[in-house]
């Protein structure tokens, strides 16, 4: 009976661990961050490159929407790749933590302890992978954007500058988010 009850729970944990799907909370976090980071260059192009919002709002909306979508995807891709590696690296520390927790509990069995370790490992790896993915992709995106906008496309018209800077930065971040090295 207990085996049947715990099996679906094990499956859920394993599915969650190896799945590319993110929870609603993580998705909202990714989407919110992607939207904010995609909107940051608008201030730059408005104030430095003198692109008036009233004249270029269509470009800005399209650029921000595309950038948000691909940044969101980049966050998810990188999170998936990092999660397993982080889980492996944190395994020892989590084992120690849970063992210490269960040291005084005589009623606990090995199965409960393993479940607890797996859940905790999943939780820690998920959180760390999420935050690191956001941090790394944001840093990479902003470096690419500044280099492209102020050095490569410096002498082009503001429209071309904006569309190519944002487009290429987004494309590079998305492309490199799938890499494992």
């Amino acid at each position, binding site marked *: 009976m207990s085996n049947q009850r715990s099996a679906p729970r094990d499956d859920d944990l394993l599915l969650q661990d190896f799945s590319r799907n993110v929870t609603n909370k993580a998705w909202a976090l990714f989407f919110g961050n992607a939207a904010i980071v995609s909107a940051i260059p608008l201030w730059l192009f408005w104030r430095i490159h003198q692109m008036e919002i009233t004249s270029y709002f269509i470009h800005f909306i399209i650029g921000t929407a595309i950038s948000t979508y691909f940044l969101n995807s980049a966050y998810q891709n990188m999170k998936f*790749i990092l999660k397993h590696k982080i889980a492996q690296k944190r395994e020892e520390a989590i084992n120690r933590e849970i063992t210490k927790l269960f040291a005084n509990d005589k009623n606990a069995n090995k199965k409960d302890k393993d479940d607890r370790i797996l859940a905790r490992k999943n939780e820690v790896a998920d959180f760390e992978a999420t935050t*690191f993915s956001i941090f790394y992709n944001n840093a990479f995106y902003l470096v690419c954007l500044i280099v492209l906008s*102020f050095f490569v496309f410096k002498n082009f018209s503001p429209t071309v500058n904006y569309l190519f800077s944002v487009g290429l930065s987004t494309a590079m971040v998305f492309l490199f988010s799938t890499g494992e090295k």
Partner: protein
Amino acid sequence: MLCLSSTIFTFLALLAFAKGENCESPQFKITSYSTKDARLTAESAAQVEITVKCKNGKQPSTLYADINGQVVPCAQSAGSPGKYYLGVSAATHKQLAKGRTSVKLYDDDTYSTLRKTRTDDAAKAVKPFGEVDFYHPGASFGPWLPSEFIAVIGFGLVWWAAYRERSKILA
């Protein structure tokens, strides 16, 4: 006798009238603007607005300013009585001295006294109508490194630290 007394009386009346025409106890207020950007400009200029307030309500008909040894008349605006404008220009940024520059002001009487002097010492001895200071902060060429370069270096360092951390995780 009557003729002499009336002449003396007329002279004294004219004297009193002339004294009443002059500005008494003037107070000055200065607003100035000068060239601040040396990168996009070749010459420096300054515009000084001098507001004169007199105790008896009279304004000098003309105000003269001694700037860098040259005495020039100040411009006036018909719509703003009591305000006098002085323009200064310099062929290079260094010629317009940075910091406080003292400007001596002369009204008609003091200016005519100044014009009558024959030596520099005598000219220096003439008491001016007033003296004001205007401040020029200096023209700047801006930061040595462009701001976008500093931004790239800053963000680049952050990304580099993140990249190293990611490489450690994926190793």
